[in-house]
């Protein structure tokens, strides 16, 4: 195992975060605070309670997930796309590192950033609404699993993308809608039955539901199902990454 190489990539990526601190940390925190002001305070004050929890409190797990999902993808996809774009990828490819170590460096850094971001947002939320976390260990488990899984997904997008447009396309057209429709701001049980069934096809529902359960013990789907779906998506991403490196797809040809 080339630990120094993993460390070098990890540190390089983390240094990029500090260089772009405004974009990496501050802007998601600002936009999340805006959600609280708009949905939590302004609109939320007109909505009494959702499943026994104040609306402002109810949306916290969804908001954290929204940021973690989008930031994991953005960080990891940009992290690997940029060296491809400027050509510095040659050095990574010619270094004595295994594919697993490359992924560990890039995805590890992207996941770290989103986990830190998720916790910062959680702390920010604590300033607006009362928070109580019933299962902190499960909360962290879901947070880490989601951050890692979606960083891997972002890594795949970064490899696949051959232009900035494609880099933005999947997050904008797929992930953001799925997250908004995945129960970030409402309980799936609030939907008409037909929509509820369709919504269950959305993988993000399971992530948010499991995460919310760890806070308030309320869930749209069974927590084991949530965990199973998250792990399944993680495994799917791992399989795709393994295939990418085995074939050299968009890297070595």
């Amino acid at each position, binding site marked *: 195992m080339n630990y120094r190489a993993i460390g070098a990539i990890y540190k390089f990526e983390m240094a990029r975060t500090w260089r772009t601190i405004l974009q990496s940390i501050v802007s998601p925190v600002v936009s999340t605070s805006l959600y609280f002001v708009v949905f939590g305070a302004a609109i939320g004050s007109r909505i009494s309670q959702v499943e026994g929890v104040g609306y402002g409190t109810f949306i916290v797990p969804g908001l954290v997930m929204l940021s973690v999902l989008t930031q994991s993808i953005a960080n990891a996809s940009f992290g690997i796309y940029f060296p491809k774009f*400027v050509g510095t990828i*040659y050095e990574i*490819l010619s270094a004595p590192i295994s594919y697993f170590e490359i992924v560990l460096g890039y995805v590890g850094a992207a996941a770290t950033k989103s986990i830190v971001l998720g916790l910062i947002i959680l702390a920010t939320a604590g300033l607006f609404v009362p928070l109580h976390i019933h299962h902190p260990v499960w909360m962290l488990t879901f947070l880490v699993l989601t951050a890692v899984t979606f960083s891997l997904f972002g890594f795949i997008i970064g490899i696949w993308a051959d232009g900035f447009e494609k880099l933005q396309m999947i997050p904008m057209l797929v992930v953001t809608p799925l997250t908004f429709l995945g129960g970030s701001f409402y309980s799936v049980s609030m939907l008409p039955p037909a929509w509820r069934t369709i919504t269950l096809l959305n993988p993000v529902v399971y992530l948010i539901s499991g995460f919310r359960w760890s806070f308030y013990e309320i869930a749209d789907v069974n927590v084991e199902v949530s965990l199973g779906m998250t792990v399944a998506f993680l495994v799917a991403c791992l399989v795709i990454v393994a295939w990418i490196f085995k074939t050299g797809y968009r890297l070595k*040809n």
Partner: protein
Amino acid sequence: MSPVISVANLSKTYGSGFKALKNINLEIDKGEIFALLGPNGAGKTTLISIICGIANLSEGKVTVGGYDINADYRAARSMIGLVPQELHTDAFESVWSTVSFSRGLFGKPKHPAHIEKVLKDLSLWDKKDNKIITLSGGMKRRVMIAKALSHEPQILFLDEPTAGVDVELRKGMWEVVRALRASGVTIILTTHYIEEAEEMADRIGVINRGESILVEDKARLMDKLGKKRLTVHLQGRLDAVPPALAPYNLELCDEGRALIYDYDSKGERTGITSLLGDLRSAGLRMADLETSQSSLEDIFVSLVHAQ
């Protein structure tokens, strides 16, 4: 001596069906400077990319220091430093951090004294804290060389190292390359400047359209294919070469005011003495004599055109 790099029956076909390399066989000896020549698109960079692990090979086998580049990629790649042709740099990194990053990537422990030496040798020491984006093209090129040398490689690939570098800097780089060779580093360079190969290389390989045309010791190549040429400037003007001089295969030039004679300087008889005698017998008066030797460039052009 066993070769430090061995390329056997190497072919590369791109997804589009384009054959970039066709059955290349090549051995590089330890400690030599090997120049790879070829016109644009000949396959030089593809060959280097495969040896360094940037591109996959389609057929054949490559070993570096005896290690297979696929099965033992860690051992093989650890030996190599690569300076690619294009200036690929992390614009916002400082010189020091980008060079240290490269060392870490190759799994070597921190060694600030070595990095300091590399930067000083490449006249980059006073720029060590500058962001790369603020450097000139020539400096960026040297930063890339510093990155390649950061992990103390035994083999250095320089793909067009002096493209776009001014004359003085180019001479400086040659000095660096010579010093590296003196320390035992094997150097493989591709270049468009034939004078660079002529000046630096121990051996020369020429590839064209993905095929290896020849690999030869530089001095022997220039002996074998290099011709000497005698130009005889005449006092008068000729309309045609006199029939008496036909055996010399002379060529008339300068509107009939000069005769050109190609000869082999290594041959037993150059034929110069008898030519000069016969010129006098034919009643031709000489104004001046001039000899020249064909350069590697002439040889290269004739090789590539002969294909």
